[in-house]
C-alpha cells in the first residue's frame, strides 16, 4: 500500500498522521476508558468467585480451564451485569469516541492544530458524527442480518460436505459480510466529511461519489486497514496468554495488548489520513480547473486551509 496521497503535491498520509497523533492517542484513551467499566465488573466478579482461592484467579486455568468452567457458573449473575455494563459504557462513551475520531480528521487536515481546538470542534460536530455512527451501525446490522439469512439459504443449497464445499462455504461467508463491510468503508469516508462540516446526508452522498471515482484505491486502503486491525486483534488476544502467567509477564502482556489496541487505532487513523489526502487532491484538481493558481503558488496551498468546507477557523 502506498502511503502517498493521490496528488503529488499533497502531504503524505504519514505526515498527516504525524500532525494528528494527539487525537489518535485521545481516541485510544477514550476507548480504554469505555472498556474500563466492564473490565472492572469482571475483575470484581473474578475476585468474588476465586479471591479466596489459594491460587487466586490463576486457578481458573488450572487443569486446562476446569475451574473456569466452574467459575462461569458461579459468576453467572456478574456476567450478566458485565454485559449490561459494557453496553452502557459503550453508549455513554460513543459521543466522545465519535468526536475523538473526528478530531483525528481535523488534526490530520492541517499542521499545528491543537488537540483542544480539534476536539472542541469535533465535539461541536458530535451530534452529526453520532447520528452517522448510529445510522451506519443500524444499517450494517441490517445488512449483516440479511447477509446471514441469505448465506443460510445459499449454503444449504450450494455447500456440500466436502473440501470443495468448504471453500464454497467460506466464499459465501465472505459474500455475506461484504455488504456490511462496504458500508463500514462508506461510514469512514462520510465521517471525514461530517467532521469537516458537512451534514450527514450530504456526507453520505459525497463519500459515495468519492467511492465511485476512486473505488480501487479506497477499497485497497480499507482492506489493508481492516487486515491490519484484524492482525492487531489476533496479536492482542495472543498477548492475553502472557497476562495469565507470572506477575512481570502479566504486566508485559497487558502492555502488549494495549499497544495492539493502539495499533488498531493507528490503522484506522491512517485510513482517514489517506482518504483526506484523496479528498484534498480532488479538491485541488477541481480548484485547478476552476481557478488557476498564481505562478509559483502550490496547489496544496489552496486546498489545505481548515476553513475550507466549514472547517476550523
Amino acid at each position: 500500500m502506498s502511503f502517498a496521497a493521490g496528488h503529488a503535491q499533497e502531504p503524505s498520509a504519514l505526515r498527516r498522521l504525524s500532525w494528528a497523533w494527539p487525537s489518535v492517542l485521545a481516541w485510544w484513551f477514550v476507548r480504554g476508558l469505555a472498556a474500563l467499566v466492564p473490565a472492572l465488573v469482571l475483575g470484581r466478579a473474578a475476585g468474588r468467585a476465586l479471591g479466596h482461592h489459594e491460587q487466586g484467579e490463576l486457578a481458573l486455568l488450572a487443569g486446562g480451564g476446569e475451574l473456569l468452567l466452574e467459575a462461569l457458573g458461579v459468576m453467572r449473575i456478574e456476567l450478566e451485569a458485565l454485559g449490561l455494563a459494557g453496553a452502557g459504557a459503550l453508549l455513554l462513551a460513543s459521543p466522545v469516541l465519535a468526536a475523538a475520531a473526528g478530531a483525528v480528521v481535523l488534526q490530520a487536515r492541517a499542521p499545528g492544530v491543537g488537540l483542544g481546538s480539534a476536539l472542541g470542534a469535533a465535539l461541536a460536530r458530535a451530534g452529526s458524527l453520532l447520528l452517522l455512527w448510529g445510522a451506519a451501525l443500524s444499517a450494517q446490522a441490517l445488512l449483516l442480518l440479511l447477509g446471514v439469512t441469505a448465506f443460510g439459504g445459499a449454503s444449504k443449497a450450494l455447500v456440500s460436505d466436502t473440501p470443495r464445499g468448504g471453500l464454497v462455504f467460506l466464499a459465501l461467508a465472505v459474500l455475506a459480510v461484504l455488504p456490511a463491510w462496504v458500508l463500514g468503508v462508506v461510514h469512514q469516508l462520510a465521517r471525514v466529511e461530517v467532521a469537516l462540516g458537512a451534514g450527514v446526508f450530504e456526507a453520505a452522498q459525497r463519500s459515495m461519489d468519492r467511492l465511485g471515482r476512486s473505488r480501487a484505491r479506497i477499497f485497497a486502503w480499507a482492506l489493508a486497514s481492516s487486515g491490519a486491525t484484524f492482525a492487531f486483534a489476533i496479536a492482542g488476544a495472543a498477548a492475553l496468554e502472557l497476562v495469565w502467567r507470572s506477575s512481570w509477564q502479566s504486566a508485559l502482556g497487558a502492555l502488549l495488548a494495549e499497544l495492539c489496541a493502539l495499533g488498531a487505532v493507528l490503522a484506522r487513523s491512517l485510513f482517514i489520513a489517506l482518504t483526506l489526502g484523496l479528498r484534498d487532491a480532488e479538491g485541488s484538481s477541481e480548484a485547478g480547473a476552476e481557478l488557476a493558481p498564481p505562478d509559483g503558488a502550490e496547489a496544496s496551498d489552496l486546498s489545505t486551509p481548515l476553513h475550507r468546507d466549514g472547517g476550523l477557523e
Partner: protein
Amino acid sequence: MTGKLRSELARGGLGLALLAASARLLGGEPSPAAEPEAAAWRASAGATRLGARDEPLPSKLPEVPVVDYRLEVRLEGALLRGSGSVVLRNVSSAPLDELWLHLYLNAFEGPETVYGRVPPLGFRGAKADETGSIELESLRVEAWDAELAADPPHTPGEPLDRTDLRFPLPRSLPPGESLRLDMRFTSRLPPVTMRTGQVGDFVFAGQWFPKLAKLEPDGRFAHFPFERYSEFYADFGRYDVSIDVPEHLVVGATGARVESRSEGGRRIDRYVQEGVHDFAFTAWPHYVEQRRDHRGVSLRSLHPPGHEANGARALEVAAFGLDHYGERHGAYPYDTLTIVHPPEGAEEAGGMEYPTLITTGGPFWASRSPARAFDGLVLHELAHQWFYGLVASDEHAWPFLDEGLTTFVTGQALEALHPGAPVLRGTGLGVGAWDRASGKRARHRHAVASPAGSFATGADYASSVYSRASTLLRSIDGAYGGAATRAVERYARRHRYRHPTPSDLLEAVREEGGDEASEQLRLGLHERGHLDYEVVAVASRPIDDAHEVEVLLRRAGTLSLPVEVELRLADGQRLRETWDGREPFLRLRRRTSAPLAGAVVDPDRRLPVDDDRTNDARSLAPSGFGARSFVTGLVASRWLSELCAP
C-alpha cells in the same frame, strides 16, 4: 450411542489433505483372518494377567445359540421385504407359553406411539413426524402347523403402539427345547431418524426386522415398547442374513460377507455372524471404502466422497482402540469391524453401535478439528463393542451400564491416545473435567441407575447415564486407587457373552476396592449420591519457634470419599494428609515450621464428583479483585468497542 459428541462438530471450515490415494472404491470383502500370528495375539490378549485382567474370559460361545436368525431381505427404496426364520432355544428354567416380539420401526407410525409422545428435549431424533413401520405378514410354527397372532395386536395398554407384541403359543415349549418360527414381513424405513432410516438413495437399516425379546432365566421375556431415550436388549445368537440390493449399491453390515452373487441387475450379499445380539446394514451407491487389517481383524471404513481423512482417521483410531480395549477388557473376538460415516442429510444414522458395525459422523474436516470429538466418537462407539456388545446389559432397564461404562473407558482411551490434551488440542482440559461439567447439568434430578424411560428429558438422560456415571467411576478410581478401572476390567471379562446387572458391577468394585468403595458407588448410582468438599477457613499463628496452623474442612452431601488435604506453607513446603471424609467436618491443627499460606482439599483433582471446585482451596491472604481478569476484560471490551464503534 452418542448424539452429544457428534453435535459438538459444527459445520464449516476448510482445508483437508485428501487421502484419496489410500481409498479403494468398491473392493471385495476380505477373507476372515486366520493368520497364526494374529490368532496368537488375540489369544494372548485374552489371557493377559494384570490385576483384574486375571479374570478368565469365557473360552467360547454356547454351542447352540439362544436365537438363530436366517433372514432374506430385499431392498426396494424405503421398503424392506423380508422373510426367513428364527429358531429360539428355551434356555430358561420354565416352560414357555408365549413369545414377545419387538417391532421397533412401528414407533414411527405416528405421534401417538410411546416414542412419538415424547419430544427429544436435548437428545437425538426429530419430532415424531417420521413414518415407518413393520408389518408382520406371517408368523408361523411349521412344526406345529400353527399361525401365531398377537394378542392383543398392540403394546399392552397402548392401543396406538405396536412395538411390543405378545404371541400366545398353542402349546408350551419345555426348557431346553427349540422352536422354529417362520416369518414374512415388510418394513418401511422412516426418513433417517433415531439411528435408522432412508434418505435419497442412502439406507441405514437398524431394528428393521421382527426381533424376539430377551428371554430371561426365569422364563419371562424382558420386553418393552420402543421409548425415545431407550436402546435395546436381546439374546446372543447367530445371524445369517442375505441382503438383496440394486447392484450399484455398496453394502456394509454386521458380520462377515461369506457370499455375493449378481442376478438381473441386483446383488445378493450374505452376511453371517455368531455371538451377537443384533444385525444392522447400510447401503449407498456413493460410499468410498478404505480398509485395514489389524491383528487379524478386518477393518473397513465406508464414508462419503470428500471424507477420506475421516475414513483414514477412523481406521487408525479403531486400530488403537482394539488394542487398548482388548488389553483391558478382553480381545475383540470378531473377524470384522465396519465403520460407517453417514453422508450429509443422514446424520441421525451416525454415532451408533451395532455388533461389529459402528457409525460415526461430522463434517469432512471433523478428524482435523482441534477438538478431539471425532476420535472420541470413534472410541466411544468402538467401546460399545464391549459394553453393550460383548457384555450385553439391559439398555432399557440400566442404560448407564452401557453408556456410562462406555463413556468412562472412552475417556481413558482418549487420554491414552492424546496424553496431556485429550479434549482439545493445545489445552490440558481433561476428560474428567469435561464429563463432570456435562454430568452436572442434570443437577442430581435422577438416579443414574434408572430405566431409560424414567428420565424427564433427553438432556437429563444423557447427562446422567453418560457423564454422571463416568464421573462417579472416576471418583471411585481417585478415592480408592484405581478400583473402578480394575473393576470394570474384571466385570467386562467375567460377563462376556452374558447379561449383567448393576449388582454385578458393584460386586466387581467390592472385589477391587472393598465394601466401602462399592457402597459409595451404590449411593452415587442408585441414591443420587453427591458430595462437596470445602476449605471453610484457614488460620496460622506463631508459637515459640514454630507456627500453629488450623484448617477447617467441611463435607456436604451424602457421599463420603477419602480425600487428600494439602497445607501450603509460606516457605513453599507442601504437607499432605488424607481425610476419610466420614464426618461432616474436620478441624485440622498442626504445628509447622513456617506460617500457612493456604490449604487445598483434593489438590490433584481426583474426585470429579465434587460439586463445587471453587471452594476447594482457601488462602490466608484473599484478594477481592481479579487483576488478570480485569486486564482480560479490558482487552476484550476494547475490541468489542472497536467492532461496534469503529
